[in-house]
């Protein structure tokens, strides 16, 4: 016993090869066996047209590993349809699903998620608005500034404004100064705001 000789192993399973026809994968997504469902999700990650099917299965999927495979497949597809399929799950009661959807949207290309931006920015959930700010920071300059400045000037939740303040500081765009000052004036007693705004001001001065 001890270390087994390589040649005498040969005991690893020979996996069934992915021979199923495409239409079968969709059916397998509903199979009673979680292993089949997982393989179907993996296979459908190669098929951009499967985004809606994958997303539809998600809220019903009880097995965490299959759920993860569904999410990963949607990130792989990475299209606006995939993002649109995930967006409704951001409002799910199920924290696991909500976080999984949020994390997956973050891993998608910004172009795919951009159509969901208005819904995110207008959400009641400040975490989603923070996410919208993080996404906005990845957009082109015009679109980006409008959204970031709006968060600084209007968002009622201090953490959303702080996220935007950090983003404009990072981007080093002095045109954001008035919006930053407005943000500081809205939360005069918050030391965190004072600190962040001050850091941004200094950053702009250093840059100009």
């Amino acid at each position, binding site marked *: 016993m001890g270390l*087994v000789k*390589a040649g005498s192993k040969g005991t690893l399973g020979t996996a*069934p090869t992915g021979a199923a026809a495409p239409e079968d994968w969709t059916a397998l997504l509903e199979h009673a066996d979680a292993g089949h469902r997982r393989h179907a999700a993996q296979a459908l990650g190669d098929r951009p047209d499967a985004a809606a099917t994958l997303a539809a299965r998600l809220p019903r999927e009880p097995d*965490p590993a299959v759920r*993860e495979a569904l999410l990963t497949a949607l990130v792989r597809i990475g299209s606006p349809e995939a993002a649109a399929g995930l967006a409704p799950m951001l409002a799910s009661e199920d924290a696991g699903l909500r976080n999984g959807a949020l994390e997956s949207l973050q*891993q998608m290309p910004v172009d795919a998620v951009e159509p969901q931006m208005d819904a995110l920015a207008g959400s009641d959930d400040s975490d989603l608005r923070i996410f919208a700010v993080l996404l906005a920071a990845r957009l082109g300059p015009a679109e980006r500034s409008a959204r970031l400045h709006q968060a600084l000037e209007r968002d009622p939740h201090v953490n959303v404004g702080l996220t935007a303040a950090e983003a404009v500081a990072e981007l080093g765009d002095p045109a954001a100064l008035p919006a930053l000052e407005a943000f500081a004036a809205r939360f005069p007693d918050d030391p965190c705001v004072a600190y962040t705004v001050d850091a941004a001001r200094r950053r702009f001065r250093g840059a100009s």
Partner: protein
Amino acid sequence: MAPPSEEPTDGAVSPADYRTLCDLLRERTGLSFTEAKRYYVQRRLAERVEATRMPSVRDYLNLLRFQASGAEMQLLVNLMTVNETYFFREKYQLDCLVNGMLDEVVRHRRPGERVRLWSAGCATGEEPYSIAITLLERWPRVDEFQIELYASDIDSMALDRAREGVYGERSLQALPAELVERYFRPVAPGSWRIIDELRESVDFSLVNIVDPAQVRRFTGIDVVFCRNLLIYFDDLGRRNAAAMFHEALSPGGFVALGHSESMSRMSSLFVPRRFPDAILYQKPAEGAGA
């Protein structure tokens, strides 16, 4: 859409072709090359374009994508991987293996049963051989079980060298002299070969860890070592790899990652476990939920 690529002058690659290549590599291997790696990638690409006598980078990219055998893709991947490794690297995890991890793995097993370990991303073999040496030297129960040691990599050249098992001083420097004495034989000045008994105990194979069809062969694994590999992946690649390991592992099985890598940032499927020597990630036992 990508702008049309200009033909490269001075061996440079157009931005569009560079993007196409990076996308292709990411899709096939999980490896993620950012703009910062452009010089590194470009040099190797130019080398292969020339070696294959392709008239342009664009033609070469088509060869990569459509060649049925995948031989050129393999050659390019071999050039793109970073194979840096050495014996007893991140030894605290080897300590952990014999100071508690394996005892936990075999807790409900009878003597004579199997224990399966897998070094995924073994490069030139130092890692799986280090595991073998550690087991033989330091796990008192090594003879009670049938221990199967698998090792794989996406780089076929590195695997050839792993199978050959010949190492220089640099690879061996962290290994105590008496272990070199016991497990190696000198073959030339500054060059040692690992003894046959160890070479034969590791099952080497070519496996791309983000390809479900290739990984599916691995089942019932108790411990996966995947160290210093996922740092070269992007988020999606890491997530895919985590899912592959989850599938390959037995319930209660462990993943050991490199010191700068953390599973919590890539998957919700594992729970961190703190051992005295290291933090590992565990696939929850059946019925325990994730």
